[in-house]
């Protein structure tokens, strides 16, 4: 009984710690809000399940290292980090809180659900709102922006150039 209670508290504490780990490329958003942390499971020891965004995402290893450091520093050296690739990461897993933070940071969050298929990098027919002034009078400058997961847009209303987080 005590054992279970302790473990529940540990799992909760680990979630809290992970909430403070920023994504290396978009530090305004945590890896939990980005949907990279899939689960924290109790298997006698804690298991943190993480998933890569893109197969070739250069941040994947850095994220694992950071999580390792955070866990070790907090005394959870026995916690295990497990990479899971299925189901494949989707922008649908970005939390509402994450979307709000992205917008505040100047990045337009994914505009459609990837689950419908329509979102998969289509983007062309979607109204992408400018994170600065909110206008949907925007145009795509380039399908690829500062990182693989973003496209480059410009607002025609306020002229702001901005990144758009593509749907995947």
């Amino acid at each position, binding site marked *: 009984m005590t054992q279970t209670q302790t473990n529940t508290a540990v799992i909760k504490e680990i979630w809290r710690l992970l909430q403070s780990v920023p994504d290396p490329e978009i530090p305004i958003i945590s890896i939990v809000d980005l949907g990279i942390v899939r689960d924290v499971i109790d298997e006698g020891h804690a298991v943190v399940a993480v998933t890569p965004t893109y*197969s070739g995402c250069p941040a994947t290893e850095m994220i694992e290292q950071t999580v390792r450091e955070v866990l070790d520093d907090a005394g959870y050296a026995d916690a295990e980090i497990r990479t899971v690739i299925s189901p494949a990461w989707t922008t649908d897993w970005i939390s509402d809180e994450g979307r709000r933070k992205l917008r505040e940071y100047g990045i337009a969050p994914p505009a459609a659900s990837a689950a419908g298929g329509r979102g998969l990098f289509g983007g062309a027919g979607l109204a992408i709102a400018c994170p600065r002034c909110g206008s949907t009078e925007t145009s795509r400058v380039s399908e690829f922006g500062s990182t693989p997961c973003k496209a480059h847009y410009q607002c025609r209303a306020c002229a702001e150039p901005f990144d758009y987080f593509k749907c995947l």
Partner: protein
Amino acid sequence: MSGSIDIRAAEPRLEYVLRLADNALVLGQRLGEWCGRGPALEEEMALVNFALDLVGQARMLLSYAAELEGSGYDEDDLAFLRDGMDFRNLLLVELPNRDFAFTIARQCLFDLYQCGLYGELERCADPRLAQIAAKASKESRYHLQHSAGWLVRLGDGTAESHRRSQDALDRIWRYTGELFESDDVERALVAEGIAADPDVLRGEWDIQLDRILREATLTRPSDGGMASGGRHGRHTEHLGYMLAEMQFLQRAYPGATW
């Protein structure tokens, strides 16, 4: 670990996973050569991003291959310490990039193939392969969206871009027969529900390609003599030069790490 490693006569599943891995690795390395040379910044980023995805897929596949092989190698050993004749990639992916039209035409034909292939493998009887396929399938679809979009734009563009695209297609065509070849390895795995059936893949590839080419106002080349041998380690001269560059560091300084 300084000498070459040699994975010959692999059991079918390992052989198949290595074929998939080598296609991704070799084309990833090829596309990476566009870094610093793209016709426009945006296109360079697109091609290099695709290279990253492919290298990422290769890593997952090579790690799985290393586990299946079982002598304690890892993904890096398999990438950097095998010689050319131990690579199983299609000849199509090792061809030099030539111009942008050639790179795009090759990419479109390959992406279309990968979409069909990984779409099938997502449902295959090997759970690990199915997981990797699900990830790769998503990426292949957005690569195709880009490469097919460009092929249409170039084909249906200026006289010069049309000429270059048609020329690229004509040059590449003899390397497309190999995509749908089968052998004992694949037949055994198709029977087990693990590999995708090349005949099924070919049907869908033909239909989709004809649709793209029509929109691009390009002519589908007629099937002539087809080059073959990549799956079995018989490569064009181009692969050796690529591997010499890709593997140099690990060969000259065995075990070097960052």
